């Protein structure tokens, strides 16, 4: 409850700062709008529950309709781990990638408009061996699947 309030305050102050900056003419308002669409709270979470709260969703339901494609079981280099996710859940609206043991759990959120295949691949960083979650939002509900990826060389250290 309290953390929620903090986050709301933080988000609020960030917003007003941006508005001020935009008003001062430093920023193209379009760029400011782009910055605001970044969900700061969600990218600073450390557990699946926290992330879900920040994304405004309920506890996700485990689903076999989400599959990892072209994703290794063992990643030699944690700095570049290929991740491919395909969702067969009808009306998939968004796909998120979460890495349990990274400093911040959420790695990326992709909004999938109608007409775009709910399937994508990218590359992420992993600090250590961890479970990776593929979180799918479809028709207002959340679904999740996970996979453990072993990392032999971390990607977050110096």
């Amino acid at each position: 409850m309290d953390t929620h309030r903090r986050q709301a305050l933080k988000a609020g102050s960030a917003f007003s700062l941006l508005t001020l900056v935009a008003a001062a003419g430093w920023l193209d308002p379009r760029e400011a709008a782009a910055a605001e669409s970044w969900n700061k709270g969600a990218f600073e979470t450390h557990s699946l529950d926290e992330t879900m709260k920040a994304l405004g969703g309920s506890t996700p339901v485990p689903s076999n309709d989400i599959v990892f494609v072209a994703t290794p079981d063992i990643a030699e280099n944690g700095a570049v781990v290929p991740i491919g996710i395909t969702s067969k859940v009808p009306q998939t609206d968004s796909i998120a990638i979460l890495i349990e043991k990274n400093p911040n759990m959420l790695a990326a959120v992709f909004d999938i408009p109608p007409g775009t295949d709910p399937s994508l691949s990218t590359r992420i960083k992993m600090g250590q061996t961890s479970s990776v979650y593929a979180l799918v939002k479809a028709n207002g509900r959340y679904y999740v699947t996970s996979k453990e990826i072993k990392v032999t060389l971390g990607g977050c250290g110096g």
Partner: protein
Amino acid sequence: MADPMKIRANLVGDATEVKVLMSHEMETGQRKDADGKVIPAWFIQNVKVAHNDKVVLAAQWGPAVAKNPFLSFRFKGGAKGDKVKITWTDNHNDTRTDEATIA
């Protein structure tokens, strides 16, 4: 200004396959330099892909996306010769837009 993205957009059946390689440090803010000072975070936060001004993919990224990010996906409705426009914005509010023609 950052280096241009490498974008490929190819028609595969009835879908357009987009592959993009962006050039960005994607610094996490977790690493330290030789003097033990934290290297500040510097990463792409928003990515938008548009086909004929219709957004076909919008993404929010954290610093856990790998350096020089790669992204691949497919959308329907593209035709040969159409333009695919990709824009990213990082946490310094630096932005870059590149365009490719569907082949």
